[in-house]
């Protein structure tokens, strides 16, 4: 017969009571958090107990205390491009040499075989980000963006070809920048590029458009772009004529820019190393 002071008895109660206390605490929390509170909150929000409990567990979406808002007017996306793992895989597996054949056949007439465009109204594509080219071609293909030449061209391309063409142009080197375009930009323009204008809610251009910058992965690189092309695109964003920018980012920004700023920025990005 063990005495109450027997170490084994002391040890046993030290094992039992802390275990009971810890497990009871967690179970008590579960009882309150998963059962009682959701049911009570659900009752006042008009949610049946089963749904409320499932929501508290995270099996059903939404809060057990708030009725789920039903969206009767789902928004129409401005672009059909979704960066799913499948799309990224297609881009990763794109074949530039197949893209070259298509470029020679279709694109080179305006954009140049090396991606240096034939005329100032067509954008340069040399060294452009592959995801940017992919998104724009896809938007032309689906009608999210339209252009008298590009719409028909893009409608004839399938997704793999689009990816191949994007990979081909992305792999073309940018030109050696011409010294004549490397002149210093006005300070106000450089400031807009690097810092933006917080008072007008204009973020810095470089935050998204510099090579390797943050922001959406489909943001194009602007360095060495055609000045006339950039001016016309910014004006089309400002007027709402072009609207394939997700969340209306570029429409919001371009609408706040003055004509002088649009011209200055387009001239800034004509140069290399931007």
């Amino acid at each position, binding site marked *: 017969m063990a005495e109450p002071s027997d170490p084994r008895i002391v040890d046993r109660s030290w*094992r039992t009571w802390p275990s009971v206390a810890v497990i009871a605490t967690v179970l008590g929390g579960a009882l309150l958090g998963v059962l009682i509170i959701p049911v009570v909150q659900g009752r006042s929000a008009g949610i049946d107990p089963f749904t409320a409990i499932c929501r508290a567990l995270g099996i059903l979406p939404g809060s057990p205390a708030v009725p789920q808002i039903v969206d009767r007017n789902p928004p129409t996306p401005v672009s059909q491009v979704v960066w799913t793992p499948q799309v990224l895989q297609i881009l990763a597996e794109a074949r530039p040499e197949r893209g070259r054949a298509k470029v020679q056949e279709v694109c080179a007439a305006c954009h140049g075989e090396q991606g240096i465009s034939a005329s100032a109204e067509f954008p340069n594509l040399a060294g452009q980000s592959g995801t940017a080219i992919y998104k724009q071609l896809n938007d032309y293909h689906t009608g999210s963006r339209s252009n008298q030449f590009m719409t028909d061209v893009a409608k004839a391309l399938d997704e793999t070809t689009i990816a191949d063409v994007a990979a081909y142009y992305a792999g073309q080197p940018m030109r050696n920048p011409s010294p004549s375009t490397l002149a210093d930009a006005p300070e106000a323009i450089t400031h807009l590029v690097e810092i933006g204008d917080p008072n007008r809610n204009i973020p810095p251009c470089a935050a998204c458009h510099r090579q*390797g910058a943050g922001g959406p992965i489909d943001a194009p690189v602007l360095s060495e772009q055609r000045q006339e092309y950039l001016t016309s695109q910014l004006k089309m964003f400002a007027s709402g004529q072009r609207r394939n920018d997700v969340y209306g980012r570029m429409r919001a920004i371009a609408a706040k820019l003055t004509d002088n700023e649009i011209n200055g920025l387009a001239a800034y990005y004509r140069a290399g190393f931007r």
Partner: protein
Amino acid sequence: MMEEWPVHNISRLCLAHFWVAFASFLAAAVLGTYQMWVRSPLGAHIGTPGGYYMSVTAHGVIMAYVLSTFFIMGFGYFVAVTALNRPLPGKGWAWAAFVVGVIGVVMAAVTIALGKASVLYTFYPPLTASPWFYVGLVLVVAASWVWCVLMLVAMTAWKRANPGRPVPLAMFATTANAVLWLWTTVGLAVEVLYQVLPVAFGFVQTVDVGLSRTLFSWTLHAIVYFWLIPAYIAFYTMVPRAAGGRLYSDTMGRLTFIFFLIYSLPVGLHHLLMDPEHGNGFKFIQVLLTAFVAAPTVLTIFTIPASLEIAGRLRGGRGVFGWIAALPWDRPMVLAAGLSFVMLGFGGLGGLINMAYGMNAMIHNTAWVTAHFHLIYGGTSIIMYFAIAYEIWPYLTGRQHQSLAPLRWQLWLWFVGMMTMTLPWHWLGLQGQWRRVANFNYDNPIIASWGPLVTLSLAGGLLLLLSALWFVRNLVVLHRSVLPAPVRSLYALAVDPPQRLPMALNGFGLWNVLVLVAMLMAYGYPIAQFVIAPSPTAIVHRTE
């Protein structure tokens, strides 16, 4: 006493760890001051956002992973030898781990300095840094795991040699921290090895952000207790002795460290209260468990002042409060404990707001949170790291401080600096000042109205930098001191020293089982849901 301790055997090991910790601390303190400067109206036009985030990453990585880990490892080796009065088992392993850890720090530092790792110390997938940044941090953690094993081996070997005797409290607490750290790093290790590294090496292009945030939350709360426990070890085992008294209760100390082990782990979801990927029920469970983290602090607020009261009355203090004035506040350890308690009071009350589901919504992602963790970690914990360093450096070097006045000044400066920096910062958070932002537009009238308080905060930051410099100066001066170290014991005796303890208070077997049970209940489904019903993954954003 010194002669009996084999401390000279490991003094080089401990000093190597401490100097890595404190040298990098000094660099991080400079960066922290720079960040306060460019956030304020005085420096609002200096630098670029890229430079700011690089600085924040370096500051956070050093303070959170390098200073803490290396200090705690060095302190653990010291405690294992001095509290157990035995040589350190596996000293070669300890040196090997040190070298691996330093290599890891260098890898992380180089990638940050090259601008390839501006992801902050909390990583934030789908932001992705150079893989070598993560590999470097994995090496630091791997080094700390070696330390954990050595602490467990040291305690087990002592218990085998002293059957039935209570493990000295300092070693019990250090081992509790090692056990806690092993549990803590599981979340981070799974996130980095299973999610982040495959992304960083480019094997996959998307990452499940909900899962990575959940795994990081596993680590994110317990890690702050890993940082805090050395302060508590000093409270329980060094402060009563330094004050000239005894520890009021050895059992309270053991319970405190056990509470830390159990209730710091199944609580991390309170960092995700505003995240959509978890049900309210599991958030509630973990918030409730978070409330129990207050338990060890309440035990400590009772036990340590009670121990100090014993010391104060032994020194002739009378009346209800007279014992406070009678305490030897000129001793750095006692002074630091007092200042640390004040900061713990403010920081702890702020923490209650962070953990409360409803109130958290007001301060979530505001400067309040940044202010809170600076006050608790930078204030409560780090001031005790200073005091511990001042206390044990003489044992490691065999030299004594020539004067305690510079030590006291440094501690006061740290306290005043930390309060001046963090109290206005809290208030700014309540005004809605956001965190993780590189620059503020002080032309905006609302932001301009924050200007004076941000500037006051910066003044606190400058005092902290001055104090950090002074701290390192004090240690350098000690290395040149000609006074021999005193011969006296370091650790406090309890009023009623335990002769025999229940097994539960002398080891961690039971508590590990309870941690496992609590973790399964609190984190089982929240993690399993990502496997049962995978959510859409996010595109990786490479910062290189």
